[in-house]
């Protein structure tokens, strides 16, 4: 029971960081999404206490391991727009595949090139 309470409290901490971030982003009209500000709040808290409380770690790890679950409704939502892209089907398909590949190529190679230049290699290279 005590563990369940701690886990629930940890979840509330995540909700509070997210909500605070969203409110601040909205109030100040920042171009930064609220959830990103929420990440910074939680990170600031962890840096301040210099450790990850066990319950917070478990809740965060659990949610991150199941992020896919939370994206399913977004996937279902795509069906509403199927008619909209029927007319440009081929350009859309080619652009989505090729551009995703090219973006990964550009980001991945830039990362590795600069890591090599700055002597910051890691395993696998």
């Amino acid at each position, binding site marked *: 029971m005590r563990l369940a309470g701690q886990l629930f409290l940890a979840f509330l901490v995540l909700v509070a960081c997210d909500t605070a971030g969203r409110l601040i982003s909205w109030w100040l009209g920042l171009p930064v999404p609220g959830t990103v500000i929420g990440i910074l709040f939680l990170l600031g808290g962890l840096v301040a206490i210099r450790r990850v409380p066990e319950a917070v770690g478990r809740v965060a790890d659990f949610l991150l391991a199941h992020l896919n679950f939370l994206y399913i409704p977004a996937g279902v939502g795509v069906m509403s727009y199927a008619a909209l892209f029927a007319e440009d089907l081929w350009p859309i398909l080619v652009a989505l595949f090729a551009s995703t590949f090219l973006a990964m190529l550009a980001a991945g*190679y830039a990362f590795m090139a600069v890591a090599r230049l700055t002597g910051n290699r890691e395993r696998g290279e």
Partner: protein
Amino acid sequence: MSDIGIKLIYWDRVFEAGFWILVTLFFYYLALRIQRALGGTPLANPVLLAAAPIIGLLIAADIWVGDYMGGGQALLWLLGPATVGIAVPLYRNFARVRSALLPMAAALVTGSTVAVVSAVLIGDAMGASVETIRSLAPKSVTTPIAMGIAEEIGGYPSLAAAFVILTGIVGAVFGAAFFQLLRIRDERAKGFAMGIAAHGIGTARAFQENEVQGTFSGIAMALNGIVTALVLPLLWLAFS
């Protein structure tokens, strides 16, 4: 899963939203089982494997997608707190992240530029409509930001949202194969490239791979969202 089957009927009478959340959970569970049975391959993407039968179900039973979204919105809301959780692996890997600031900056600038420019050029070369191209431009950033950008540059926000999700699925499904083809073996580079190109759905996949990939993907997703939101509308004004 028979206990969930019983709860399905029970919750159906209590709240529609709870019912649809359970349906989603059920298909997610099935999708995970399938993915595990296939050795955890990224080709069996849980978002795709779960969303496709739900779409089929809605069409077959002639149910409006808005009814489903009563439950769907709750899960989309939960994405916020879950994403905030990225602070935890970020804290655990702080030293590693701090030492990679320069590679991340280089990958951010080149990756976010290529993600936008290549989509626009390919769409244009293949004769897509102006609205389609404008909705494609922000495809690599998270949904709420992409919708705002599409609106600002004259695309359709809802179409942009659909492109974002499809891009994420393409990245999550084929990312590992692309990295192998490109001989990218550094887990940090893989994660960062995944987050730049395929935002949250790519990040979900990256966390399935390992914590380092997931962390770098999460950072890339956040930074790419900010940079694209700031720069893309200005670039668009300059070049059109």
